[in-house]
């Protein structure tokens, strides 16, 4: 007997379209998620890699502030000798350059470079020429600022060290030196051939020495770095690859992409569940056909093989649809992400991403279709005589499939993370989340089951949840987990917004001026032309509390910081630094917690008032003697009061407030804040900075706006991708309605025969969906609120808001969505006359 039966397959595809459609949509959804995410991730990653390489100008950079040991040099030279990498050296240092024979001199930031630098990125010159067409021994390229400040021009000579070189061009862009980079002097590029002639790189010179390597094989980058690392003194030689050298922004994107990948995996799993439940529904409607086929002598294999082909055909349609949608999505992404992604990022989907997605999609389809198809084997021909569901047996294959799905899930996470330990932690965490969701669902369902509802439609709706094979449990678990993640993100976003954006009092200062010198205050106030409080700030170290070292800050900020540019230095204890102020009275929004008055009686020498949090953190009590070192002057102060400050207050808060006469003479700066209409900020800022260049301006409005827009864009992207999981959840609801279609048709027919109106039946079905939505949303909200509370409290250390309005809205929206989807899927059932069902039953008997 032949195994393939094209007509049979065609018939299966042609009938019962709705289940096939759900199945196809689930497959498409998993594909579109994968393709969009891979495409998005690949694009960002490519751009970041390109930027990261350009940022260090190489694949590997070996760097030290001391001349390299010969071992390091020979290791690099050996790599170059065997052709594993191209190499180049650079020497970067400050030097005073002069116009030959004239007075002017200028501290400049020199970079002496071998041919080859930079291996990545392009140096742009004012002339438009290529770097190496200009830079040669005897010639230098300088920044415009040098020309301006020394009063020289291109073609002039420049005295650098012992050499006199000619200015050949002006540099306008240097890829490995960000424009925001702080520098004490303008850039001068010198050819490596002139290094000896400069006579500046000697013992006693402070030079940043670098070896740049461009790997012949991009995959060997880490190996090359390790090769050098083995011979280098780690304390003094820093070895970066373009990967390790990534900036904070890039690390953020890496984490963000990882998070999105997890959302993607989650969606994939949900889509898988949708695939399984829609296929179950699809096959259930075919039990009769299959039983007849078996009665007529078809083998189980015939049935399985032919249905597998049906499934694969449907799967292929879904995959194609998904990939197509993925491409469409790529065009919409840039609009969604504009201003958020690194500039000039190209959003394209590589063939590799599509192939990978398709393969992964295939695995998911096969995995999740296994059980429903496997169960067909248990279907006996006698099904056509006895109208019974085939028994659910096969505990072993079921457990195996579950294990395989778990394995796939963990495998995907490991693949995305590339770190087994973290991946296992994450997979474990996800399992725990699912477990919690499952336990909560089970508890809620048990409670509901015992709930004796007297109101008839309510009782019938409740009973509907426990309809055989309803999948209520699966729907609630998946929906509540998906919604939980989404709610949690939303609640955190709203909390951050409330904390930073909305809670800023409308009359509080929004522009702050720091570092006003005491002798500038009068002129400053005149220029400002507004009433403002001027607050003195005095830097000081807290050396001791009652002669003993202050309690340590748990975050270890009191350790030696290693100095500029270096890794960790000494780990000895450093006294904590504070900014002190002085004033005669409590500020607005402050109140005394302990002590009779701010500075006690007049007898007290050097009285100080301490903020409660500071007192708690450093173990300070009323009457304690605090030893400060105020920029070289030791001062013992007695704690006369402990203050508290209103949570809503926008006043600056100071850990230590002194009586005025103690600190009036201390070295200090002054700061102030004013409230300015947003459109006047820029003008004010320009006016003040022009008059007082040493003053720093902080525009809180801009800060808050910038922060809010970053938060908003991040959540936008997260929401966008989380929407896929929600879609998957809704598809599960639809497929579940179809899976229980027969049971629902039966119920509807019975209700009508027994005298229920169409409206009554609709009400029961609607209520059932409301219960389903309410249950899922309530559980999701519970989990989301707990998680968001924990994150806000422990991670962000911010006040948590429960957001009752938003919570109710989230539940309402969920219920509405679930009800809408459920009712649309049930329309056919509600419309049909009971006789149709009864006749069907009679005909089958």
């Amino acid at each position: 007997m032949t195994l393939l039966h094209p007509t049979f397959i065609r018939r299966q595809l042609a009938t019962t379209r709705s289940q096939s459609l759900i199945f196809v949509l689930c497959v498409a959804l998993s594909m579109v998620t994968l393709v969009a995410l891979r495409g998005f991730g690949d694009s960002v990653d490519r751009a970041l890699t390109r930027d990261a390489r350009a940022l260090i100008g190489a694949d590997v950079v070996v760097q030290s502030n001391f001349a390299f040991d010969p071992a390091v040099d020979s290791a690099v030279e050996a790599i170059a000798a065997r052709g594993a990498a191209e190499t180049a050296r650079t020497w970067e240092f400050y030097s005073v350059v002069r116009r030959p024979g004239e007075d002017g001199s200028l501290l400049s930031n020199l970079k002496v470079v071998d041919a080859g630098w930079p291996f990545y990125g392009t140096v742009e010159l004012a002339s438009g020429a290529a770097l190496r067409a200009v830079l040669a021994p005897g010639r230098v390229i300088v920044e415009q600022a040098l020309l301006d400040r020394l009063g020289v021009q291109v073609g002039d000579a420049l005295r650098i060290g012992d050499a006199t070189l000619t200015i050949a061009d002006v540099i306008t862009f240097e890829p490995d030196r960000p424009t925001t980079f702080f520098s004490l002097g303008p850039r001068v590029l010198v050819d490596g051939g002139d290094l000896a002639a400069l006579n500046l790189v000697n013992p006693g010179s402070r030079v940043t020495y670098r070896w740049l390597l461009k790997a012949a094989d991009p995959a060997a980058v880490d190996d090359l770095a390790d090769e050098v690392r083995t011979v280098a003194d780690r304390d003094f030689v820093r070895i970066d690859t373009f990967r390790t050298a990534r900036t904070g922004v890039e690390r953020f994107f890496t984490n963000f992409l990882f998070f999105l990948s997890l959302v993607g995996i989650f969606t994939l799993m949900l889509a898988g569940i949708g695939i399984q439940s829609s296929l179950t529904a699809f096959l259930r409607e075919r039990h009769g056909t299959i039983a007849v086929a078996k009665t007529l002598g078809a083998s189980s294999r015939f049935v399985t093989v032919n249905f597998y082909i049906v499934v694969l055909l449907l799967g292929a349609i879904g995959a194609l649809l998904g990939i197509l949608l993925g491409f469409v999505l790529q065009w919409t992404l840039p609009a969604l992400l504009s201003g958020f992604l690194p500039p000039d990022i190209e959003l394209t989907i590589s063939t590799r991403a599509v192939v990978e997605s398709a393969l992964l999609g295939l695995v998911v389809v096969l995995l999740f279709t296994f059980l429903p198809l496997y169960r067909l084997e248990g279907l006996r021909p006698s099904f056509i005589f006895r109208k019974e569901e085939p028994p659910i047996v096969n505990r072993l294959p079921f457990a195996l499939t579950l294990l395989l799905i778990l394995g796939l899930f963990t495998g995907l996470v490991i693949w995305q993370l590339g770190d087994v330990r973290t991946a296992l932690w994450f997979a474990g965490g996800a399992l725990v989340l699912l477990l919690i969701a499952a336990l909560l669902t089970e508890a809620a369902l048990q409670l509901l089951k015992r709930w004796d509802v007297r109101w008839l439609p309510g009782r019938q709706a409740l009973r509907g949840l426990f309809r055989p094979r309803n999948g209520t449990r699966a729907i609630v678990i998946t929906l509540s987990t998906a919604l939980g993640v989404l709610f949690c993100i939303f609640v955190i976003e709203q909390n951050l917004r409330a904390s930073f954006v909305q809670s800023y009092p409308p009359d509080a200062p929004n522009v702050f001026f720091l570092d006003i010198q005491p002798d500038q205050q009068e002129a400053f106030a005149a220029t400002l032309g507004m009433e403002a409080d001027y607050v003195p700030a005095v830097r000081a170290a807290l050396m001791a509390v009652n002669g003993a070292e202050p309690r340590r800050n748990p975050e270890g900020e009191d350790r030696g910081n290693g100095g500029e540019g270096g890794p960790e230095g000494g780990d000895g204890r450093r006294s904590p630094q504070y900014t002190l102020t002085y004033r005669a009275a409590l500020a607005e929004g402050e109140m005394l917690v302990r002590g009779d008055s701010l500075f006690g009686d007049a007898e007290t020498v050097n009285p100080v008032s301490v903020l409660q949090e500071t007192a708690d953190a450093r173990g300070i009590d009323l009457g304690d003697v605090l030893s400060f070192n105020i920029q070289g002057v030791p001062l013992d102060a007695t704690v006369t009061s402990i203050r508290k400050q209103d949570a809503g207050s926008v006043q600056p808060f100071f850990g230590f407030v002194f009586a005025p006469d103690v600190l009036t003479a201390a070295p200090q700066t002054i700061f102030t804040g004013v409230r300015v209409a947003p459109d006047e900020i820029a003008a004010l800022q320009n006016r003040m900075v022009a008059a007082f260049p040493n003053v720093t301006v902080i525009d809180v409005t801009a800060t808050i706006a910038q922060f809010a827009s970053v938060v908003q864009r991040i959540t936008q992207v997260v929401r966008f991708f989380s929407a896929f999981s929600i879609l998957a959840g809704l598809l599960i609801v639809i497929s579940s309605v179809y899976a229980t279609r027969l049971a629902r048709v039966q119920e509807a027919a019975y209700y009508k025969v027994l005298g229920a109106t169409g409206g009554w039946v609709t009400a029961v079905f609607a209520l059932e969906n409301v219960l389903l939505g309410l249950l899922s949303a309530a559980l999701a909200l519970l989990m989301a609120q707990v998680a968001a509370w924990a994150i806000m409290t422990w991670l962000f250390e911010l006040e948590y808001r429960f957001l009752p309005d938003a919570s109710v809205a989230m539940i309402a929206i969920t219920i509405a969505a679930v009800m809408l989807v459920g009712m649309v899927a049930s329309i056919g059932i509600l419309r049909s006359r009971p006789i149709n069902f009864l006749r069907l039953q009679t005909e089958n008997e």
Partner: protein
Amino acid sequence: MGAMVRRLEFDNLLSRHMRGRAGHALALLAIGLVLAGCGAAPTPMPTPAPTPTPAGEVLILAIGDSLTEGLGVGDEETYPAQLEAALRAAGHAVRVVNAGVSGETSSGTLQRIDWLLQQQPDVVILAIGGNDGLRGIDPALTEQNIAALVTRIQASGAVVVLPGMEMVRNLGSEFVSDFRAIYPRVAEESGALLMPFFLEGVAGDRTLNQPDFIHPTGAGYAAVVANLLPYVEQAIQQAQAR
């Protein structure tokens, strides 16, 4: 020397609801690294009550920049702390106060010298000028500031120890020699005790410095103190002789 930038303590400047790690992130987002020039205008003598020095104890004020403050090392490893320990071990009843401010140039020190001298120190170690050199400031200006500082300190009655500073060779031989010449000349003109080079035997030695090449480690400061000790002891003698 050292940290020319410092992170603003945003916590102190804005309100409490900006606090926490998110507040820090916000602060960094907003202002990043802000260049902070800290100093004070000379003001009339106030009425503070600094911690008094016990009678008979010699007060030594270590004025300077990050090399004095001890950037990157613990409190006990800074040179003033080690110097105090060494002097006490040698039987001197002294107290050494750390008056170093990271990133400070000679102009900054000039602005806070009155604040410092209110303590009426017996000996002042003035280790300043390194940041001037690293920023390429004209050695003539640096010399003028240091000379003014020495004059003011001597006028207060304290004995001045003036450790010489040298500049990294990469700045160019002319600048390096101009800079080096400041200290002997100021010492000669003022009568301050000159220690020829503060970082003698320490500068450039990888085993005694932090990876930034500029700042010594605790062991580096121990070597500095060993070199400095005789000059300080001499200054103590001079101070006690008055």
